[in-house]
């Protein structure tokens, strides 16, 4: 039986158990790396660097984890902070400008298999904040409240970014849905 996160966390905090640390990283690396890849766009190396920094920061701060959110949600919050700091330092956005993306070429009708590509392409055209909200709520399956905690935003901001993001997606993917 695999021990729950809470038990592994206690082992790390109490006795600096490296095996427990490794298990926590293995267990949650996919969610964190998917999130940082979503934030960093196509730069997988930067995304993995951010994910690694996230786990190191989490290790250092683990004794302060109070369980007010789930452990993965807490990790995603750290990841978002790291990314925000990195973006602030670099002063560059990895995604296209949202205004520019809103007027980007809509996909042309194509075989159904291309919808997958067009959806991924449309998601990349959202602003970073919209991407983060859509990713957390749909792809990570978080509730709006959990996404708000991860992003350190008010709940209304999450909903606003979700609504804007989905509206842009509807426009970008309108060709796939003649009713809209």
């Amino acid at each position, binding site marked *: 039986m695999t021990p729950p996160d809470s038990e592994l966390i206690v082992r790390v905090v109490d006795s600096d158990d490296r095996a427990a640390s490794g298990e926590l990283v293995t267990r949650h690396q996919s969610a964190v790396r*998917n999130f940082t890849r979503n934030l960093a766009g196509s730069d997988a190396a930067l995304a993995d660097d951010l994910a690694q920094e996230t786990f190191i920061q989490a290790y250092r701060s683990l004794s302060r984890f109070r369980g007010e959110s789930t452990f993965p949600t807490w990790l995603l919050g750290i990841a978002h902070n790291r990314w925000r700091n990195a973006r602030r330092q670099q002063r560059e956005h990895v995604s296209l400008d949202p205004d520019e993306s809103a007027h980007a070429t809509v996909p042309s009708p194509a075989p159904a298999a291309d*919808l*997958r590509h067009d959806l991924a392409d449309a998601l990349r055209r959202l602003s970073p904040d919209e991407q983060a909200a859509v990713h957390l709520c*749909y792809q990570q399956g978080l509730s709006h409240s959990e996404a708000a905690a991860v992003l350190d935003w008010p709940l209304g901001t999450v909903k606003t970014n979700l609504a804007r993001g989905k509206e842009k997606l509807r426009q970008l993917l309108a060709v796939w*849905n003649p009713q809209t």
Partner: protein
Amino acid sequence: MEPANLTPLPPDRDPLEAWLSAKAPVAPLPDEGFTARVLAALPPPQGSFPWHRLLLYTTGTLSGLAVAWWPAGGAPNPVPISNWWSGVSTQIVTTVSLLGDPWWSLAFAGAIVAAAVVFAVRVTQASPFEPDF
């Protein structure tokens, strides 16, 4: 995980919601050595005693005490420093001359080997390149 059924939907459903939901959950990424890299980058285990720091602090403290002791009582001038250095040199020569005795040499070599073994064991235990899975 790629969406398996990402196809245009009937107009009575919101296709976007359905497409986004079909895209969830995110594909699980293979570890590909990520966990090992994270463990390698973690700080050394708390249990390992910082011998190198102890050695550094002790050496620094003793050196400071020695410098303060020998030329004490006078303004800095070349004579006491010269005398101090002369005393230190004499002591070093005396200490080294003890190694002429085979038993002292043996004891000295044993101490060095023991210290090296202890240091190597400590470093191996704390090595970030040996993640403890």
